[in-house]
Structures are given as structure tokens and as C-alpha cells.
């Protein structure tokens, strides 16, 4: 129980830290974001009545009349009500609505791609580690090279090859824009075909890390006594490999999965930029380009909350599958 309490407590602190960072970043930076925002709003025909200005000052901190502590409290209050303000770049939509539209794209694309690369890495790592010294081991050096290649560059090359030259996949976007969005076959198939190439690039660039970690754990697990015992009992080789060795060797990878989730989100920003994918990472960049500070902050918070939540989930699950972690903490 203490283990779970500690974990949950830690993530609450992390969440508070993220929210506080979000509060202080615009206040520490030079320039006055609220003035830029108001000018933009007026260009787009928004009404700049004092209440709108007031709510942005609360979000972005240009109001010098209130003390910092009071600003902080009202900012927290706004967040609790789910009030992130109004997006300037897609005025008059609310920030929460804009985020709601783009979040599912990212979750499906990045989530599936990450899962595929994780599972693929574990399976390949199991095989390579079990047959150590065979020709399979020659995969290992290439993983070092892959890890050093900038992800977006790899994506650019693959897009140039598979999309521009070979025309296997559509190059840009999340779906064919001539179709209307909905649960019909033509839309879904278009969305799937647009998602394959971005997903492929994510899998290719991240599978190497999982493979290497799993392979190294398999090698050391294979030397354990209980593997020898299993062999002596005359169990089938495949059974020893999967039920005895791989099950134990996978534990550190599962723990690593949690820490990798943050990097996955970073990858999503790049992916969505290269492929103009309509997800949350692409939105974040659009927000930056358009000085849409409210949207920027809202997206940063949502991404952080998602990463923290996923981390917490993996941590709690890890406590379940490996009781030793609970004991040592």
C-alpha cells in the first residue's frame, strides 16, 4: 500500500510542478504576450472587451496590478474549471475544443505505433538474445546507427522514397480531405492509409532500443540456474525461451516503457510536422507560429497530464507484475 501511495504522491507533485512551470514560463519571458494576443484577436474580428483581456491576463500574467500569489490562485481556479481560454488561431473555438479534436488522431497513431514497436522489439530481442552468436546478432550494430539518426530526417527520407518516388502511400495529412469525417468505410480506409507511413517511421526509429535492451536481458537471463533446471527437466526449447527466460527478461523493458512515453510524445510532434498530420503535436507548432499562447499552454498541459497518467499506470502495473519493486521501495 505504501508503494502505491508513494507513487501517486510523486505523480501529484510532478503534475503540480508542470502546472506551476506553465504558470511561470510566460511570466519570466521578455515581451508581453497579452498585447500580441489582443492585436491578433482584433485582426480576426474578435471583440476585445475587458473581460476577455482580463481572462488572458490571468492565463499569461501581464496583469501587474495583482500580486503573483493571487494570480497563481486564480490561474489554478481557471484550470480546475477546464478553462484554458479561447484559441486565437482558430477563433472563436475554445482551446479545450481544439485539443479535443486533435487528440484522438495522436492517441491512435502514436499509441498504436509505440505498442507495435515495443512488442516487435521484445519479440525480436527474445529471438536474437536466445540465439546469441548466430547471424541474428549482426542486427545489433545497426541499432546503434539507427539510434543516432535524427528521427525527422529518417521520416523525410522514407517519405521521399516510399511516397514521392514509389507512390505507395499518401504523403501528407491524416485523411483525404474531400471525404467527410465519420464512421464510414471510405473515410476510415483513407485514414488508415494515411497513417501507415507515419507509423512505420516511428516503429523503425524506436524498435532498435527495445530490441537491444531485451536482447541483453535475454543473454543474462539465459545463464540463470532456473533455465538450466528447465533444460534438465527436458522441457521444449520454445517453452523455456518464452515461459522461463523471456517472461523474466521483459521486466526491465516494461519499466523502461514508462520512461519512454515522454519521448514518444516528442516523437509525435516531429511526426506530425513532417507528415502534416492533424494531431496534437502539429497543433502545438501551429499555435507557436501564430502566437496562440493559450492554445500552446493548454496543449502542453494536456500532453504532460497524458504522459504522467500513462507513467503512473505503467508504474502501478509494474508493482503488480514484479512484487520485488514494492518490497524495495
Amino acid at each position: 500500500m505504501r508503494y502505491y501511495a508513494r507513487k501517486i504522491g510523486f505523480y501529484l507533485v510532478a503534475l503540480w510542478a508542470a502546472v506551476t512551470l506553465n504558470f511561470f514560463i510566460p511570466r519570466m519571458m521578455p515581451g508581453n504576450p497579452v498585447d500580441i494576443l489582443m492585436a491578433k484577436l482584433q485582426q480576426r474580428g474578435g471583440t476585445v472587451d475587458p473581460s476577455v483581456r482580463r481572462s488572458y491576463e490571468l492565463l499569461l500574467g501581464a496583469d501587474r496590478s495583482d500580486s503573483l500569489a493571487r494570480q497563481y490562485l486564480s490561474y489554478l481556479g481557471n484550470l480546475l474549471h477546464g478553462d484554458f481560454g479561447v484559441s486565437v488561431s482558430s477563433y472563436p473555438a475554445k482551446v479545450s475544443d481544439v485539443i479535443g479534436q486533435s487528440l484522438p488522431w495522436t492517441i491512435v497513431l502514436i499509441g498504436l505505433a509505440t505498442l507495435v514497436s515495443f512488442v516487435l522489439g521484445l519479440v525480436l530481442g527474445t529471438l536474437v538474445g536466445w540465439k546469441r552468436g548466430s547471424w541474428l546478432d549482426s542486427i545489433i550494430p545497426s541499432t546503434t546507427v539507427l539510434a543516432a539518426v535524427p528521427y525527422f530526417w529518417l521520416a523525410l527520407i522514407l517519405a521521399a522514397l516510399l511516397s514521392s518516388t514509389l507512390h505507395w502511400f499518401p504523403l501528407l495529412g491524416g485523411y483525404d480531405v474531400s471525404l467527410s469525417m465519420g464512421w464510414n468505410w471510405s473515410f476510415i480506409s483513407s485514414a488508415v492509409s494515411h497513417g501507415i507511413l507515419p507509423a512505420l517511421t516511428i516503429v523503425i526509429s524506436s524498435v532498435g532500443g527495445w530490441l537491444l535492451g531485451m536482447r541483453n536481458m535475454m543473454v543474462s537471463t539465459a545463464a540463470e540456474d532456473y533455465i538450466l533446471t528447465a533444460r534438465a527437466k527436458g522441457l521444449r526449447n520454445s517453452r523455456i525461451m518464452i515461459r522461463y527466460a523471456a517472461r523474466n527478461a521483459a521486466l526491465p523493458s516494461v519499466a523502461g516503457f514508462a520512461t519512454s512515453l515522454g519521448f514518444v510524445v516528442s516523437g509525435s510532434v516531429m511526426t506530425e510536422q513532417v507528415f502534416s498530420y492533424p494531431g496534437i503535436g502539429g497543433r502545438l507548432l501551429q499555435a507557436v507560429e501564430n502566437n496562440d499562447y493559450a492554445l500552446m499552454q493548454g496543449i502542453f498541459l494536456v500532453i504532460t497530464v497524458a504522459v504522467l497518467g500513462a507513467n503512473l499506470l505503467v508504474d502501478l502495473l509494474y508493482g503488480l507484475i514484479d512484487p520485488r519493486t514494492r518490497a524495495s521501495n
Partner: protein
Amino acid sequence: MTSVIPPSSGLEDLPPGAESGAVPSPASTRRTGWRAMLPTWTPKLAIGLGLVVAIALFGLIGPVFAGNPDTIRNIGLTAPGGDHWLGTTQTGQDVLDQLTHATRGSLQIGLLVGVMATALSAVFGVIGGYVGGIVDEVFSLFSNVMLVIPGLPLVIVISGFVPADQRGSWTIALVLALTGWAAAARVLRAQTLSLRNRDYVAAARVAGEKPWRVICVEILPNLLPVLASQFVFSVIAAILSEAGLSFLGLGASNSSTLGTMLYFAQNGFALQRAAWWWFVPPGLIIAAFGCGLALINLSLDEIINPRLRRPGRKRVGRATSGSSRNHAVRSTVA
């Protein structure tokens, strides 16, 4: 200050990480003193050093011989040929000239961030781990929090708030260092925790040495291999993140790096126009440099964890078969 402990006492000790179930290595391969701090000469290390030195020279000396990378010529996008070895960009700028300057820019940022991030991780990891108690609790909580907050979105938000004309390479380096030290601090803390309970450290403390002196003289020298490995790793990470940031158009406004080259290539539709000479070389240099540093890092790992060393011609046999466990843990952390 009475020197009860000879200053070199820490150096003769096996590097940290060696103590747990150390495999008795043959006396002939065991090296002592400063030589133990140097990686063994392997093909891996040779290739790694070769790549890194070649690219560093290219970035250091290249700009001297290269022409002005901003010269605009009336020839548009041309393929590689006699006059322009790597072709030109859309506005007729020589790609090779740009590449030399961009490589220098990327290396500068990488080094800058590497130094700052390593210093930060040493402060939070080593001091926290050594002092212990509430300081350690706070420091390690802080690094764990920084570790779970997704880095790139945070960097994007920070860069988004800094006006473009004030976004110099120092700003970018500072932001990257501030968001990139946490993982290293965790490793350093773990190493410091194991070091601080060694007899000679305890002896120094009992002899009344001041904490900062114990840290600088007894602990830090033993952490050198780890620090070097963390430094190399943060240089790789910095060059990659800077490239990503510049590619997104959020990089430093006053510098040209490999990332900005890729940004202009993407914006000039180099991809759609199949101008491979424009977008392939910058990525290749990043990849080769990162790969070289990674190979050097693998060799450094062998000092940190002697059990990773290959037993050489004499086969130690089964005793080393469990050797890669620490490595696996390290690579999942990294």
C-alpha cells in the same frame, strides 16, 4: 589541512560498479592508476574516434576553406558537379559551404549543452547523493519530476514565448541544458551512493575533511568515467534536439546548424523536387557524429562496468556470461 589519505588513494580503487560480484579478471589485463580511466583500444573505439575527429575537423577547418555560405547565385537548384561538389540550394547557395558552417554551429551547441547539462547533473546527482537526508530527497524528487515532464513540448513552449530576435544560440543551449540533465543526475546519484560508503571516503570524513573536499578529491575522480559517458551522451542528445528544434523553425535565430539546413531544405520543397544533395548530407553528418559518439560511449561503458570487458584471448568461460545485465539496465534508462 592534514592529508591523512594519500590523494591518489581513490584512483587505485576499482571504478564504481565493479564491486558487485566482480569477476576476478586475469592479472595481466588489470590496469591501475590513471590507465584504468582510459578505454581499451578496440575497433569500436577506433571507428568511433575516427568518425568524431573527422567531423570535428570538418566543422573546425572546413569554414576556413569554404566560400561564403550565403552567396546567392543565379543558377537555382543544381545537382552536384565540378563547381559545386554538393550542388546548390534553390537560391544557388553552395551546399558544401553551408554544410561546413552548419557542422560548426551544431558542434558548438552540442558542446555548450554537454558542458552545462553535465555540470547540472553533477550538482544535483553528486551533492544530493553525498549529503543525503532531506537534500537528497528534494534533489532526487526534482530530477525525477524533470524526467517525467516531456522535454520537447516544454522546450517548444519555452522557445515559443521567447521572441525570435532574442532567441540566440545561448538561449537555446540553456533551454536544452535545463531540460536535459535529469537522467544523468539519476545515474550519478546511484554511483555516488555506492561510493560514499567506501572505507576511504568514510576515513576522509572521520579525519575531518570538509564535505566539498571529500566530494572533489575522493568522489569526483572516481566518477570521471561516468561523467565522461554522461557528457558524451548529452552531446548526442543536444545535437539531436537542436536539430529537431531548428527543423521546427524554433532554433537560434543567429546561428546556422545542420537543423536549420534541414529546415530550409524542407521549406524549399527539396523533398518534392528530389534534391537529395540538399537534405541527405546534413542528416548523414548528424547520424555519423551521433554514431561515433555512441561507439565511444560503449567503450567508456567498459570502464564503468569492467564486467562488460571482453575476456580477450583467454576465455574466462561461464563466469562472464552474466556480464551484460548492467548494460541492459543502462540502455533502457538511456
